[in-house]
């Protein structure tokens, strides 16, 4: 009854305040498009599809509660029409919500009107919204970044986003969204993955209006200059693009490293970032892996090969079990929550690289070609070595891998080292490309076995120890070319010279 009254009041105010809900034709067209392209995630009734809500994090938005993350309107207010249209057009990177660049302006408008029908709020007194004014960004400077850091600390952003912005603040592991799904504080060092866009204006909007439905609050930061200082600090934490790599070079060094004391060796080497995605290929699937990238460096001495791995993880799980072959359920809820799982990482190489033949399957090898796994269980101090002939056949063996690991400010660093030549296992011959891939397990996410983040095969190039200087070949080839030119000129002139001048 109350709702009815409210509704009536709402409709009355509609005409009064001229809220734009679109025409019947527009909403009908929107409904058709919605049922074709959106209903399977957002639900035919707009309440979110039950099956997909299990499989995507964040879950597809439930439109019936009229809660929207990306708004130019105040915290708790409804979004403007343009906000909804922007969200549809641009999507939310690294979530299940894709961008829809192929939809026309009219189609997006119709969808927006239809989405508004899922909640009465749009027709009611809250329906009329005034977007906040978004000022143009002033220029960025060294000082604004330094002051921004102070604003960041003063406003307790670090509580959730962490000291260095890696999403590892003390409250981070406890966060849930309005719909009681666990949610992670954004990793501010990966701006390319921001859901609402990565420009300075986007960041400004994010903390000014907050992300409704998520724990990310809105902040009224004063004086106004400090708002842009904070933007600049957040902006400075990350490069623009992910720039995912496909190859890492093992630089030559004179002697094996001491894995426990190797920072100085790797300091001067630029890391390569490889994209990590969910293992959704074999049973035990990881639909929302905890880790989305791993940074890799490598050095090679005459007798050893060493790999340094770094990735961001909001909390270090250093107790519990870990293993590449542990069983993980596929899509069913976790059985026994008294068992906990430790973080872990594995580097994978083909056990034998014979030129011309195939490589092992990138998920732990196959029956014809096996894969070597250097496995670092981060609850242990020692790495182990497995040989995989497919994820169902992974055998522990005696190959020795030295390992050290450390965790600080939301980042794991793991260094592993192996002898360069061990018969029956991957060889690291100089001047060759060795296929390399990675698996990462986030214990917080209860990842183990097949439930993990994976990469495909990339390349590890083993640099040559003694590089030939280009000077001598340059001179000799250059000289040979000159000689050739002179001889040609001489011959041509001798044969045709008279004729031509005659």
């Amino acid at each position, binding site marked *: 009854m109350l709702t009815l009254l409210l509704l009536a009041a709402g409709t009355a105010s509609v005409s009064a305040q001229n809220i734009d809900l679109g025409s019947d034709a527009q909403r009908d067209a929107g409904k058709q498009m919605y049922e074709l392209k959106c209903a399977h995630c957002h639900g035919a009734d707009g309440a979110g*599809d039950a099956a997909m809500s299990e499989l995507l994090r964040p879950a597809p938005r439930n439109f019936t509660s009229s809660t929207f993350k990306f708004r130019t309107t105040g915290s708790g207010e409804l979004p403007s029409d343009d906000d909804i249209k922007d969200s549809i057009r641009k999507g939310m990177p690294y979530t299940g919500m894709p961008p829809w660049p192929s939809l026309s302006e009219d189609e997006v408008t119709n969808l927006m009107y239809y989405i508004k029908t899922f909640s009465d709020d749009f027709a009611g007194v809250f329906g009329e919204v005034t977007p906040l004014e978004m000022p143009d960004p002033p220029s960025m400077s060294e000082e604004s970044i330094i002051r921004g850091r102070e604003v960041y600390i003063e406003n307790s952003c670090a509580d959730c986003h962490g000291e260095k912005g890696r999403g590892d603040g003390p409250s981070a592991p406890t966060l849930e969204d309005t719909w009681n799904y666990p949610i992670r504080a954004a990793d501010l060092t990966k701006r390319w993955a921001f859901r609402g866009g990565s420009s300075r204006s986007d960041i400004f909007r994010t903390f000014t209006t907050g992300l409704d439905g998520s724990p990310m609050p809105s902040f009224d930061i004063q004086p106004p200059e400090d708002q842009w200082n904070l933007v600049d600090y957040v902006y400075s934490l990350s490069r623009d693009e992910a720039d995912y790599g496909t190859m890492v070079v093992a630089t030559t060094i004179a002697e094996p490293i001491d894995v426990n004391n190797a920072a100085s060796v790797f300091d001067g080497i630029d890391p390569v970032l490889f994209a990590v995605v969910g293992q*959704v290929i074999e049973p035990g699937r990881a639909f929302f892996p905890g880790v989305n990238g791993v940074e890799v460096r490598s050095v090679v001495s005459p007798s050893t090969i060493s790999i340094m791995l770094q990735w961001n993880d909001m909390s270090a799980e250093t107790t519990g079990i870990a293993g590449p072959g542990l069983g993980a359920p596929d899509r069913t809820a976790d059985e026994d929550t008294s068992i906990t799982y430790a973080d872990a990482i594995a580097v994978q190489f083909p056990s034998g690289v014979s030129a011309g033949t195939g490589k092992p399957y*990138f998920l732990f090898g196959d029956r014809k070609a096996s894969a070597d796994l250097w496995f670092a269980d981060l609850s242990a101090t020692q790495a182990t070595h497995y040989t995989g002939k497919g994820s169902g056949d992974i055998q522990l063996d005696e190959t020795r891998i030295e390992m050290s690991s450390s965790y600080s400010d939301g980042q794991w660093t793991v260094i592993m080292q192996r002898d360069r030549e061990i018969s029956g296992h991957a060889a690291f011959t100089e001047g060759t490309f060795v296929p390399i891939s990675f698996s990462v397990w986030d214990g917080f996410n209860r990842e183990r076995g097949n439930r993990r983040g994976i*990469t495909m095969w990339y390349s590890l*190039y083993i640099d040559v120890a003694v590089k030939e200087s280009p000077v001598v070949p340059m001179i000799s080839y*250059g000289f040979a070319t000159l000689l050739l030119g002179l001889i040609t000129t001489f011959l041509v002139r001798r044969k045709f010279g008279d004729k031509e001048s005659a």
Partner: protein
Amino acid sequence: MNFIVIVSVAVVLFALRFAKLNALGWAVAWWVGVYICFRYGVVPPVPASIMSMYMFIVTLVLVAYVSAAHDRMKEVTDSLIAFFVNPKYKIALGLSLLLLPVLVAFQVYTGMTSQPQPPISGRTVHPPPPGNISFQGKQIDLLTVHNPYRDLADSDPQAFSAHVNAGRSIYYQNCVYCHGDNMEGDGMFAHGFDPIPANFQDPTTIAMLQESYLFWRIAKGAPGLPSESTPWFSAMPAWETFLSEEEIWDVILFLYDYTGQLPRASEEVH
């Protein structure tokens, strides 16, 4: 494709028609034009090894073109000889004699100091399917099998759309991560894979294939590919471990339904 580059090359080549070039000039203009198209007009860039192969072929073609007609050949040799002998070209000749070695030395330098490029392996995208496969203990003859629910489209549209809808749920719950919401091969995990997940909106994928072929690819995935298709790289799962025969036929119906494509008819094969 970078159309700006390609169009500009075409425009320049067209404009050169009005500058009276001899046969040598034309050959050189074409060579340079094609080089620019390959080098800057194609995204992602053509790897160096392939590039030199292409340019070798282009050179052969141009030589063949020039030498095919006697007067063209003569025009070319005459202008070449003139370049070496005629005093008019003295400075140009001297410069070329000096510049060429410098260019060669530079080439040697970049070749020896540039980062090595990982080897690229070509792959056969659509290898011939096996004659029959064993699917969950049952033999399926790929030459004769057809989608048992396809005919429902005419005979029982309601049952047909129930199958399409079942396929829709299967697609979203299993395939969307790679093949994407709009089936353009750009799902949320697609950036982690190469070869990239197939784009079903592209007319060269499912529209070109028979439903029995899709059944094979979906049931056996990457591990079922022959080695010329580099099965160790492809992320395409073998769905026989997750889906029943009926579910695979359903998701196939949905792929065609959503993209508005039709499977290639089996008569066309022979």
